[in-house]
């Protein structure tokens, strides 16, 4: 079986996103001063994801989806989160744009993914994998959520680089 981005990278990214979600939420709650702000951060993410989704939907040249940039972009955001000092007073002002960037990138990626043949298969697989992974993680004592977030960021960057080198070599099978 050939390893191509349509087969495995989206699965890695989707599973990763869901697995990292609880850790991300813990971090986001820690850096939001109030529940209201936490909810607003989420709303901003959600609106931005809708925007990202729409950007891909209306994109003309879908073959040039620049997926590697999306992966690297998301990876960089997670790594930045890992390196921000939690005690920084102006943190909410940094978190908000990060939420928006992440939202746009995730929305874009989701729109791309949903147009791939493997999307439905991945949906089933990712639920299963996430379930098993979360059981596994339940035995890991969280030192700090940012450790996991940073590791995931690095993984996304590797996916991005992988995708970059793969571009041009393989063609992406499209849904009919």
């Amino acid at each position, binding site marked *: 079986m050939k390893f191509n981005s349509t087969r495995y990278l989206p699965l890695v990214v989707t599973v990763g996103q869901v697995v990292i979600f609880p850790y991300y939420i813990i971090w986001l709650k820690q850096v939001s*001063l109030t529940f209201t702000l936490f909810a607003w951060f989420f709303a901003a993410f959600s609106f931005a994801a809708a925007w990202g989704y729409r950007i891909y939907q209306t994109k003309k040249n879908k073959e040039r989806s620049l997926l590697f940039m999306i992966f690297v972009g998301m990876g960089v955001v997670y790594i930045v989160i890992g390196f921000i000092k939690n005690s920084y007073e102006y943190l909410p002002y940094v978190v908000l744009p990060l939420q928006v960037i992440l939202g746009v990138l995730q929305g874009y990626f989701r729109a791309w993914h949903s147009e791939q043949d493997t999307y439905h298969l991945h949906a089933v697989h990712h639920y299963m994998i996430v379930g098993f992974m979360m059981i596994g993680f339940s035995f890991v004592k969280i030192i700090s959520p940012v450790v996991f977030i940073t590791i995931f960021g690095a993984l996304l960057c590797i996916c991005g680089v992988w995708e970059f080198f793969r571009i041009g070599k393989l063609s992406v099978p499209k849904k009919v």
Partner: protein
Amino acid sequence: MDSITKLVKNPWFLGCLVIIFMAVVMWNIPIEKRKYGLSQGSLVTDYTGLLPEHIERVVTAENRNDLQRIVKQANENGQKISIAGLQHSQGGHTYYKNGVVLDMRTFNRILDIDEQEKTIRVEAGATWEDVQEAIQPHGLALKVTQSQSIFTIGGSLSVNAHGRDIRFGSMAETVKEITLLTPEGEIKKVNRDDSDEWMKYVFGGYGLFGVILDVRLELTDNDLYTIHTEKLKTNEYASYFNRVLKQPDTAMHYARVSVAPSSFLDEMVVINYDHTENTDHKSVLKKEEGVRISKMALDAGRKGGTLENLFWAAQKRYIASLNRKEITRNNAMRSESTFMEYTKPGRVEVLQEFFVPVDSYDEYLTDLKDIIPANDKRHDFKVHNITVRYAAKDNFTTLNYAKEDMLGLVVLIQHGLKEEDITNAESLIQSWTNLTLEHGGTYYLPYYRYQTKEQFKSSYPNWQDFQEEKLRKDPNHVFQNMFYEYYVK
């Protein structure tokens, strides 16, 4: 219709919505408030968090009979009681090791407003804000308060606070009568003619002479003022201020001294509130305005160096922009406070206030330059702001900081929390206090006790009278706090 659908389908439509939403959220990100007080886990603190201490319990003050019972019990079983208002004091004035804390914040009803007599009777846990809301519709205003309205009346009288007013004397002088729960558990009405001289010790008594239950305060009209601002050289200020005092037009006054490196202690801006012929019955109490911008500017100033120069330039410009504007007395007494919040871990921001006789002011500031560096960018101990206010001679209270007409320099200081940083801050503030004493001055007691006991005794020569009266009026030492333990006990 078609064009609307087309517009909505354009991804930039969603993009714009996201950007607008982001801007709205940015604008509404709350300012992080410092965490302090009676509910911070097992240890209580006050405003700066510098003196965490374990206490036995907090009693929420609800009715006077319960409070009386608690005080009587304490006389029998040796329990120690402290009193807390909004805990803006900074030296453990509101709690004591393993003691009971009476949380007065819920004891805050307005009992009576007499429009003819111009007085209000109010429970001592009420804030100035509560009082202002009650008296504003009657066209009335307070005579003396701090610059902000975020303090309780009991807490303010117990430090005999002062503010921008320059006509009505000390805060203690604006009180007609109080109801006091004495250290032995008696509830009594006390006025200025009282032969036991309770007021002399309760005002500026830091909660050591019983609980102020309610207060009848004198009020004045909610006059409309015109703001008058001016830039001055520091050495012109004392004579300028003496002129202001002589002309009855000015009701309130304060000033700022530059702590920016380029004009350190050389430049000042003054702000006067001058009488118009009008009283205001209509305008509403102002809410906090421009907090975010002010905080950003102050944060820039906190960095020191060039940014502090810019901050001073911005302050001068802002203050100049107030010139000729009108403001009511009530509104002039409720400045913003949220922008001062400072929550950087490992550092603390504290207040200190030094009083010097009006005529010593110029020389004092010149000498101060030898103690505090003009550019504190690379220093741990940083001075961010100095505000100058007038404190009229007070012959009434025992621990009086204004033995003659004084100018009070309120100093906003920041330093680290490592042992060596605190020691350094202590040493600088002690030098500053010595300089103040050399110029016939004193320092204010509600703030953190960087000073030595000797400095306290020199600043407050009546301290022995205070101590003796404390033993007489509270023979079982029921009312205690960390301030008393450090300085007087």
